[in-house]
């Protein structure tokens, strides 16, 4: 398959020298569509349909190229639906187990009907050193008063090329809550766009990441506030090691008319090796007066004060760094309610050190 075009486009352009306006890609990947999907027993109140395509108008953060690929390759859509008024606490787990040389495209739509609540966990796993391609697109629609919890964990091999496209819309009082653990993959491009259309709609993004070796993690978040009193909070906690690279683009757009909207993005990056390369671009666009937009970033090594505190308890520098890395990832992990998923993440992190 031809993989060609601009991915993870920045909603508002800036200086070209920063090389953050989007990622130009032109390469060929092999698809074999192996890799099996296991949906474990479906809880009451959830239905699964095959081959729907109901949320085509919902845009994802990786950009329109991703939609083109899905169309061109005729990727079937798995529609997971929470029925009206049903609150389902048991998570629906989609485990994608990939192997050496696999090439896979997958697409899901998660629809939470009015007043429902659903949790979907997607794990992408392959062995540590395996290579392959995995492109996934997940569209979300939270109808009035509904809540979607989405958990995505990337534990792919360190030679994997990975695209993860998330697009969502939230209606009145709806809530989209996404947790992402980006730990694996060789080159990972992940983009999220959420349109907060409804009054008091809300998006929570919690992202934990660890980049090592020559990994590249490229992220693009685009949160559009249309609804009055809509709220968003995007928090990233990550650590970077070795020669790894990470790009973070975060855009909060407080659109005229979104009175009372509040948007916040925070990024904390722990830099642990000389060779790392970190780019961060936390944008706020604002065309409405009655709003609050904030962003903050702290980027750097472990602070001297923290290091001294750790050392005064007998923890040497290297161990303190590991401890703090785990702590950061943990603060995201603990939001995940699934033991299996957690266990896998813990194991992955333990193996990293």
């Amino acid at each position, binding site marked *: 398959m031809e993989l060609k075009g601009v991915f993870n486009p920045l909603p508002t352009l800036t200086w070209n020298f920063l090389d953050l306006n989007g990622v130009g890609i032109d390469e060929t990947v092999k698809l074999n569509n192996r890799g099996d999907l296991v949906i474990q027993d479906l809880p009451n109140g959830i239905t699964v349909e095959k081959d729907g395509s109901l949320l085509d108008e919902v845009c994802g953060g990786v950009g329109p190229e991703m939609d083109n690929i899905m169309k061109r390759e005729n990727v079937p859509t798995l529609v997971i639906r929470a029925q009206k008024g049903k609150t389902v606490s048991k998570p629906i787990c989609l485990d994608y187990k990939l192997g050496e040389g696999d090439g896979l495209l997958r697409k899901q739509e998660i629809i939470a009907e009015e007043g429902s609540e659903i949790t979907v966990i997607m794990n992408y796993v392959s062995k540590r050193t395996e290579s392959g391609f995995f492109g996934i697109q997940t569209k979300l629609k939270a109808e009035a008063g509904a809540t979607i919890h989405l958990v995505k964990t990337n534990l792919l091999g360190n030679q994997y090329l990975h695209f993860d496209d998330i697009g969502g819309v939230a209606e009145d009082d709806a809530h989209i809550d996404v947790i992402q653990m980006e730990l694996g993959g060789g080159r990972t491009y992940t983009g999220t766009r959420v349109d907060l259309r409804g009054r008091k709609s809300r998006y929570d993004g919690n992202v934990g990441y660890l980049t090592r070796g020559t990994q590249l993690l490229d992220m693009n978040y685009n949160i559009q506030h249309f609804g009055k009193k809509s709220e968003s909070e995007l928090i990233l*906690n990550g650590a970077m090691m070795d020669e790894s690279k990470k790009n973070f683009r975060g855009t909060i757009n407080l659109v005229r008319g979104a009175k009372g909207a509040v948007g916040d993005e925070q990024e904390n990056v722990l830099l642990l090796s000389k060779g790392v390369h970190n780019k961060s671009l936390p944008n706020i666009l604002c065309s409405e007066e009655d709003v609050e937009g904030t962003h903050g970033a702290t980027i750097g090594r472990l602070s*001297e*004060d*923290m290091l*001294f*505190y*750790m*050392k*005064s*308890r*007998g*923890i*040497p*520098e290297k*161990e303190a760094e590991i*401890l*703090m890395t*785990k*702590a*950061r*990832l*943990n*603060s995201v992990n*603990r939001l995940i309610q699934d033991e299996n998923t957690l266990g896998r993440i813990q194991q992955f992190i333990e193996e990293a050190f």
Partner: protein
Amino acid sequence: MALLDVRNLSVGVEDGEILHGVSLEINKGETHVLMGPNGAGKSTLGYALMGNPNYKVTGGDIFFNGLSIKNESADKRAKAGMFLSFQNPLEVPGISLSSFIRNSIVQQTGEKIKYSEFKKNLKEAMEVLSFDSAYKDRDLNVGFSGGEKKKAEILQLLMLNPKLAILDETDSGLDVDAVRTVSRGIEEYQKKRDGALLIITHSTRILESLHVDYTHVLVKGNIVETGDGSLVTEINDHGFERFIGGQENN
């Protein structure tokens, strides 16, 4: 041989020298109190003893168990048996109080401890401090009140069981009940474990229930007087005026 032997220690920060030749000896099991008005350099001494890189030793030396530790990093000093309780302990989201303590013990001793034994010790220590056991699973110092942070520091003292504990203003900002609980923890360390203490304070509340062997008065970076526990009472009654005046007349 003294446990801690501070010889003519001068310490500075970027802005200049704060301690000008301080000498102090602490033996095993002794409790020393370091008092002095604000800005005298008390906390500086605590930081310098523990090896905070922002405080540079510009003269003199520090011996612990007969070995110079002047050039050792803080973690080495902790392994050797020193402990400093912080005035403002740092918050670490993502790591629970109990797993932090366990980590510290493993790092200091270099061996794993049995979880059941650790759990038992932790429970006992928390009981001494009337510390709600739910706190062991909360993130280290995150969202703790001032009193809870101080309790968490003393809890680490009891769990790490050092040879010498330096307590920096452990009573500041605490109400009467909290002071009592914290001193109970210190008493436990002092009596049952025969630990040596250097208590840095500018008030005397925390000392009421503790036996004090020596009191040092630090003014403008110099120890201007050393006495026994009765000096605490005197300062309690008359403040530091006598010492400050004495300095200025020199």
